[in-house]
């Protein structure tokens, strides 16, 4: 416990730190963390943030299930994942803290700033819970610092639930010597729609947090930043996708609210109309797909945004778009499944349904951005592919990318991405609506308004004239042409780049948001002399070329994914019965290589330490040949 009368402050210089803000839902942890993360990024630190949120808006307070929080990992160098454990935590009560302890999220010597109001609380039950919680946590060497968070906040606001977060932010600002002027600007921006008094109160709270920390804490950390001269921006993956959609010239976003995708449409709703576009909140997921397809058919660049359960509902419409070759970009921000699953949590379980989710053979392009920066660029790429190949492009991000905040080089914009109005020149007589180039499957897209181009698109099997046709050869031709386009697209792709040596004992293959954690784990293994490399796939349909050849240079290949696979050695699980991770499943079929996998679906991003453990287990199996 602190509060020494005469205080000497020890300031440690460290390369990085991971901080957790843990509160009841509704106490503003996200706002506090958002401002802190943005401030770190703006000061030039590498940053990665992860939200901890329940699916409910405000479950009962002071329980282990009411935890709302945020983890911010920041450092001198670039940060690519949330790391292993948190080294400092601010907890508004013992119960929410306990929930993080039980998840092993806190480092053994974690500094914990805990509100002091519970220890001597007038309610006997609360005191009892507090004691039990502290007892349970005594297995660790946490360094507790009791802070009168609520008491201090009450000096400024009547309802501490709407003030403690800013007091906490002030403490963090002092502990990590953040630039307060940046924090003040952030606060002013967040509350720009509220009366000025709100901003003033919040800044007052931050200042009181700073003052309290200055007065009472005997430690500080210094995390330097490397000077940079390029322009950078900082945002989360959903913001990056939304801004990317506008940069890509998308003018119609049809959506239905679904976590964790909805904030893409919040961002778009705020600004898209000043770009001549609109967000249409449809009556359901199916209609959202239908409106986007109708708009695209009529020549607008259209997008629909959803998450797993919404994807399931859109299934039939996506097949129609593929069948009639109407370009469409679908952003699926994956969450935990199946069914309602884990609405606010990360998972990579929609790969197979994205690849094969339609009735019949329905080839489509699937791309998975690996970073928040790629969430931006993926939208531009997706539009380009969708229009060039008259196809559906599914962009698979996940809850980790969606809410994580990272800084990246400000992307240069290209006016050509905005190319809008579709060609409505007269259609030459004799040109057929599906006049496929027999080699590439490509054909000219004709949109309403083009004189002489009148035809009826149909989800029924059709011939080049778009006439319903049940003729065996025309059905086979249509199938062939729709599939051929993917092969043509694949011919434009490069083989994936490897991180690490070009050959070795083990190649770890991942996809999407896990890149940072996998690379960190692989680097750790390499530094200990293991011969491990990794590659992170972005294009999943069609797959990037050359995989079989790359795999042949490694003794073992395994995927690491955030989804379910059976664990060898579990009851009934053997080579015959084992179900593999989704990417492993695809790669095994595609390359005929015996690709293994380690997957996990804890509803949170993967930790480098866990990946590392399973890499080592793969390289050095125990007697049963089973991963430890």
């Amino acid at each position: 416990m602190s509060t020494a009368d005469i205080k000497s402050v020890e300031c440690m210089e460290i390369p990085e730190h991971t901080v957790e803000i843990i509160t009841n839902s509704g106490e503003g942890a996200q706002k506090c963390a958002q401002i802190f993360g943005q401030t770190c990024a703006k000061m030039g630190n590498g940053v990665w943030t992860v939200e901890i949120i329940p699916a409910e808006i405000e479950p009962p307070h002071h329980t282990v299930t009411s935890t709302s929080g945020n983890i911010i990992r920041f450092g001198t160098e670039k940060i690519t994942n949330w790391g292993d454990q948190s080294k400092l935590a601010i907890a508004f009560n013992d119960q929410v803290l306990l929930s993080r302890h039980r998840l092993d999220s806190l480092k053994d010597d974690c500094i914990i700033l805990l509100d002091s109001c519970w220890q001597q609380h007038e309610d006997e039950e609360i005191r009892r819970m507090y004691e039990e919680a502290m007892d349970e946590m005594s297995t660790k060497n946490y360094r507790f610092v009791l802070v009168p968070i609520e008491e201090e906040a009450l000096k400024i606001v009547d309802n501490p639930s709407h003030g403690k977060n800013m007091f906490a932010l002030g403490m963090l600002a002092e502990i990590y010597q953040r630039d307060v002027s940046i924090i003040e600007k952030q606060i002013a921006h967040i509350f720009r729609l509220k009366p000025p008094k709100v901003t003033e109160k919040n800044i007052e709270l931050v200042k009181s947090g700073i003052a309290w920390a200055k007065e009472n804490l005997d430690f500080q950390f210094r995390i330097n930043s490397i000077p940079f001269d390029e322009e950078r921006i900082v945002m989360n993956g959903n913001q990056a996708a939304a801004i990317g959609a506008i940069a890509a010239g998308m003018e119609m976003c049809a959506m239905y609210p679904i976590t964790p995708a909805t904030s893409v449409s919040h961002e778009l709703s705020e600004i898209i109309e000043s770009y001549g576009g609109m967000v249409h909140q449809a009556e359901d997921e199916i209609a959202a797909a239908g409106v986007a397809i109708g708009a695209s058919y009529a020549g607008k660049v259209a997008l629909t945004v959803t998450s797993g359960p919404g994807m399931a509902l859109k299934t039939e419409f996506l097949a129609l778009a593929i069948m009639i070759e109407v370009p469409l970009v679908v952003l699926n921000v994956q969450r935990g499944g199946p069914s309602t699953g884990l609405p606010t949590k990360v998972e990579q379980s929609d790969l197979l349904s994205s690849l094969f989710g339609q009735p019949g053979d329905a080839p489509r392009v699937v791309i998975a951005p690996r970073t928040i920066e790629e969430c931006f660029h993926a939208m531009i790429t997706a539009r380009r592919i969708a229009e060039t190949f008259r196809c559906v492009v599914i962009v698979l991000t996940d809850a980790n990318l969606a809410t994580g905040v990272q800084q990246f080089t400000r992307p240069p914009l290209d006016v050509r991405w905005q190319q809008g109005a579709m060609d409505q020149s007269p259609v030459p007589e004799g040109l057929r609506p599906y006049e496929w180039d027999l080699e590439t499957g490509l054909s000219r897209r004709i949109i309403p308004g083009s004189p002489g181009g009148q035809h009826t698109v149909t989800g029924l099997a059709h011939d080049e004239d778009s006439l319903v046709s049940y003729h065996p050869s025309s059905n086979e031709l249509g199938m062939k042409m729709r599939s051929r386009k993917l092969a043509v697209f694949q011919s434009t792709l490069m083989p994936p780049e490897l991180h690490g040596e070009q050959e070795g004992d083990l190649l770890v293959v991942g996809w999407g948001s896990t890149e940072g954690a996998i690379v960190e784990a692989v680097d750790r293994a390499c530094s200990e002399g293991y011969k491990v490399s990794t590659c992170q796939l972005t294009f999943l349909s069609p797959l990037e070329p050359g995989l079989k050849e790359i795999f042949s240079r490694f003794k073992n290949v395994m995927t690491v994914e955030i989804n379910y696979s059976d664990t060898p050695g579990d009851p009934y699980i053997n080579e015959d019965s084992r179900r593999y991770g989704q990417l492993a499943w695809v790669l095994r079929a595609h390359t005929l290589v015996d690709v293994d996998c380690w997957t996990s679906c804890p509803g949170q991003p993967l930790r480098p330490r866990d990946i590392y453990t399973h890499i080592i287990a793969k390289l050095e199996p125990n007697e049963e040949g089973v991963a430890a």
Partner: protein
Amino acid sequence: MSSIAISLLDLEADSPVCLEADDYQKRPGKWCAGCGDFGALNAVKRLMAKEQLQPEKTVFVSGIGCSSRFPHYVNAYGFHGIHGRALPVATGVKLARPELDVFVTMGDGDCTSIGAGHWIHAIRYNANMVVLLLDNNIYGLTKNQTSPTTPQGYASMTSPRGAVLPALDPLQATLGVSNASFVAQTADWVPVHMYATMQAAYEHPGFSFVRILQRCPKFTPDVFQKNVENPDLTELLVHENGVDVPALEQLFKARRVHDPLNIDDARSLARRSDMLRLGVFFRDDSLPVYEKVRAVPKVSAEEKVARLNKEFERYAV
């Protein structure tokens, strides 16, 4: 034929080529002989000729079912989509290109059953389009299953002992939705009335919902038999703001002057089952039209890039 006509239209703007009703037929309908869909197609062709609609600027959207083959037979752009989902597609087309004339054809299963959710909301969006419910009280293409509008007691393959529930009334349902702006009913055995109703629907700036009562020659040939045989069982709603066909005065003795602006009367007339009523039940041209309230000024590509660059300032490090 039509593409030549149109290119002439473009080349010689001074002497526009007049398109006849048959110029709007792309190919012969493949419905069964005696199908009510033929009558609707004829009325639509006449309307298109009357309005001289440009085939390339007209889009017909449908779902799945016998009536959803409609777009294939019209000389216009067509979108033959999936079962029950014509309205979202049509809404997307209209939002993207408000200048296009949009028609939607749906069957009773398509609109009032699998697509019922979209139906309710499309009424409320009130996008400017002509929406034809080709209601033959049965699923025809899948061969004789009960639909929501099948009369109670009427037998089908899925209700061999007769439909157990009272039929859903699409007029009452539509009239119950906020922002409904045009609701009419007509019948395939009164083609003059059908044409006049479509004309009124086309003129209405909003979501013009027209229920066309029609017979399926295979599965519901007799469903309106009493009304077909005895015009006295049908009452025409007439008004200068609705439909009034003087030629029908001889045949239909029961006529009621009904101001379509009166929603209470419209609902009450729709609810009464004493007679079959044809005409415009409700029409209000002043209600908000979705693509109009959502319209935003066009922005040039250069301006978009400039604005986006400014947007980045908000995220600048």
